[in-house]
């Protein structure tokens, strides 16, 4: 039986294309268009892996992943987050504390805070991020690595 991958993203184009790429590689693709729907689908469909966008209506990706990680049942559910955090992580590593501020980067400031918080709680695995624009080959390779075919 094909492995189930749930796509949670409010952008219909991204959902469509990820669906195509997944099906092309023999996975069953499930779709959710906001955070709340994502949680419902996880509970009802029990997917093998979740592709999770960050900026979404009704629960952002970060809120959802925190809920999953704190839940005994889903704490090991593989999740790939569709956002770029490599730079943020590098930044965080380079600093002893969070005193350093880049004044022009208020957009990322919120993201930095959340990521730092998650890392401090041990909820964050740097491997689980893929930045947009998503490269189809790359994401399929990552999924294969995590759950096989």
């Amino acid at each position, binding site marked *: 039986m094909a492995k189930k991958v749930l796509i949670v993203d*409010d*952008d219909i*184009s*991204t959902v*469509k*294309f*990820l669906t*195509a*790429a997944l099906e*092309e590689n023999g996975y069953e693709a499930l779709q959710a268009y906001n*955070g*709340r729907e994502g949680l419902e689908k996880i509970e009802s469909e029990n997917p093998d892996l979740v592709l999770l966008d960050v*900026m979404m*209506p*009704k*629960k952002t990706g970060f809120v959802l992943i925190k809920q999953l990680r704190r839940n005994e049942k889903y704490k090991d559910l593989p999740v790939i987050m569709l956002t*770029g955090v490599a730079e943020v992580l590098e930044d965080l590593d380079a600093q002893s504390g969070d005193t350093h501020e*880049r*004044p*022009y*980067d*208020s*957009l*990322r*400031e*919120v993201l930095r805070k959340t990521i730092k918080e998650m890392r401090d709680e041990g909820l964050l695995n740097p491997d689980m991020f893929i*930045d*947009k*624009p*998503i*490269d*189809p080959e790359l994401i399929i390779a990552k999924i294969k690595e995590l759950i096989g075919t």
Partner: protein
Amino acid sequence: MLGRIPIFWKLSAAFLFIVFLVFAADFLLERVDDLAFKGNQRIVFIIVLAVALSSGSAWFFVIRFIKRPINRLAEGMNKLAEKEFDYRLEEDDKDEFGSLASSFNDMASMLSAFLVELKKTRDYLQSVLESSADIIITVNPSGHIQTINAGAEKALGYQRLEVIGQHIEKFFADPKDRDLAIAQLEYSDDVVNYETQFLTKEGKAKDVLLTISRLRNPTGEIIGTIGISKDITEEKRLQNQLIQSQRLAAIGEVFTGIQHSLKNMLNACKGGSYMVRTGLAKDDRKMLEEGWEIVQQGIERMTDMSTDMLKYVKEWKPRFDKVDLAQVLSEIYRVIKQTAKDKGVKIRLNISRELPSLICDARMIYSAVMDIVSNALDACLWKDYGEGEVPEVSIGAYKIPDRRELVIEVKDNGCGMTEEVKANIFTPFFSTKSKAGTGLGLSITSRMINIHNGRIDVESEPDRGTVFRIALPLDTISGNQERIDGKKSPDS
């Protein structure tokens, strides 16, 4: 002893004494009648004696009681003239000269006290000038330096003696600056905080804030000018640095925003082209068409962004007219009602009756309010509503009593904003909606409101909702009078 008696009494006493002596002589001569003097001879002798005694005592008086005190007084005057202000006369005599000496001494004391006071004031002023870090220079009416303080020496690197008598012009980096300042002095008695540059001895330019005032003597005659300058070279440098870093920060913010938007558009193109490629390879027409549509959407969004960017930077020429705001808001309500219904959001319109008409550019106000209403709808879609809660947006307008201002209020019970987000909503390219919009909406809206001399206030609480209030003045738009009252501007 004699000094205690006034001169008048001294003279009277002397006169009586002489009269007594003459009578005494006469009496004695009578006794010696039988000797040498007889008849007329005695009278002649007595007269001669009286005259001799009178002139002798007069001479004695003049020397003893008048000439000497006058000499002493003259000497005192001379001492004062030689600035020996401590010199005092003896006040032993109680006669007129004694009181004159006492007056002289009082005067001398007053003079020396006054001089001490004057010196104190002068020293104080001098030390104020000297200890001031400001550059203080006085020049005479022909523009030649008369005094400079230590602050000036230090700031400009000159010694006092090197510059006194020099023309002030050569200390200005650009002599025209001085001409301008002096020209301004013709109209008022001072020029305040005039920004210019001085040249130091080494030829370096120093930024200064110069205040020039006319110097007048007590009769009001102009005796030159005083210039007090504050060295602001360091402030200028820091200010430039700040401007530079603010500029960098603004550019950084914009770049981050653009990059964010671009990333999402590229994502659509990349995903779409993957589907086109796969569709072609597998001869799957449906996938090909879907993929192509996604690519086109990406292109469309880039076009939108490019249009918005142009709109943002272009010069805006508002067309002001008398506008019925209720009509504008009703139109927005009519357009948005169906969209809201489709998205399950309840929308309401509350316009207070007898809303006065407004002078504004109706299209701008329409577009600004529409932008805020669309955001309010989005905020509702983003929120995870609990049981019994209904997504709701209300559009309202009212006049503030006692103020010539109208307020447009757009209220939602949507997802709200954190402080960080709220602080950035008017920043170009700042967006929380990564897949929609260009991040320019509210920046454009706030510019439109600024053109109307209005304000936007925002109140927001995460998960509770947001209120946007646009306050517009009823009639403070100036310079557009010819376009008011329905007359269309030529380009409308």
